[in-house]
């Protein structure tokens, strides 16, 4: 009916955008910053942070405000993206040396990474919804992943598991679904932008 459609249009015009502080969590090197960059590139045309093959590249919480995203049916979300350092139970500076850093650089990186993990845990109290980014080529039954998901459930924070790196041959999204059968899991490649439409749909479903 044209009148109903018109009222809907007016309603949408004056409806306040839903504001969400969206945390991006996960173990190191799962692709959290790559996903944050992908979302930022898709909607505001600029990246959020640098990425590296050396773990713990993100050692401080990085934020980007006013990322307004739109669904196919006209709904909008006003996101503040909170990209957090990877959560780990161990940090060995010698691992960084093996990746090519000098001893001095490696020690600084390790010290900063420990502070980053603490900061990421503290931020759990300040986010409205969370994307848990897991590397789909790795075994998902890991105590760090279980701890992150357990904390989100205990705090009643809605979350979506993002199985990243589906462009790689060894990726196995089914294994992640089987490990966490009660959670919604979406497979993507943040690096190449594969399956991002489905990802945005799942994101809208999560926060509604």
């Amino acid at each position, binding site marked *: 009916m044209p009148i109903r459609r018109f009222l809907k249009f007016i309603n949408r015009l004056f409806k306040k955008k839903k504001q969400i502080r969206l945390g991006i969590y996960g173990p190191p090197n799962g692709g959290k910053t790559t996903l944050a960059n992908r979302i930022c590139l898709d909607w505001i045309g600029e990246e959020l942070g640098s990425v590296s093959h050396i773990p713990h590249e993100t050692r401080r919480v990085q934020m980007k405000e006013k990322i307004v995203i739109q669904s196919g049916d006209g709904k909008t979300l006003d996101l503040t993206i909170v990209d957090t350092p990877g*959560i*780990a*139970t*161990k*940090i*060995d*500076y010698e691992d960084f040396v093996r990746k090519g850093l000098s001893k001095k650089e490696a*020690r600084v990186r*390790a010290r900063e990474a*420990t*502070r980053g*993990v*603490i900061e990421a*845990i503290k931020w*759990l109290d300040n986010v409205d919804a969370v994307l848990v980014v897991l590397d789909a080529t790795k075994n998902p*039954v890991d*105590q*760090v992943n*279980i*701890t992150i*998901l*357990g*904390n989100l*459930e*205990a705090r009643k924070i809605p979350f979506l598991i993002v199985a990243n790196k589906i462009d790689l041959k060894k990726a196995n999204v089914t294994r992640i679904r089987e490990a966490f059968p009660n959670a919604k899991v979406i497979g993507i490649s943040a690096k190449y932008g594969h399956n991002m439409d489905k990802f945005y749909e799942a994101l809208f479903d999560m926060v509604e």
Partner: protein
Amino acid sequence: MSKKISIKLVPYEEMRRDMDAVFNELKKGSIVLIDAKISPEEESEIIAKTMENIDLRFKGIEISTIDVKKEEKKGKGSKIFLTLEKIKKALTGKERGITIIGPASLIKKMEKTPEEIYLYM
């Protein structure tokens, strides 16, 4: 020559009272066994505490928890059993199960099934 490994049993209540004592044991190279399944919030507390303790010698931990046996949850009178467990947890904060924490310098990896924990040294 055979290698000696120390396993220290720490009651849950003691862990809650004095977390530093747990880390003293881990830094000495002991594996710590707690007589309860700690909660996810307590796990994140332990991770944060681990990060505060990391230095050139102490590289972190491996941690794993194991739940009440699944068969017991399914068995006869399971509702009564689970209700009693919930009451006990509400009163003591203690959930049935075990938690194992080891220094990362000693334990390379932990893997678990619903009933077993594997330690790779």
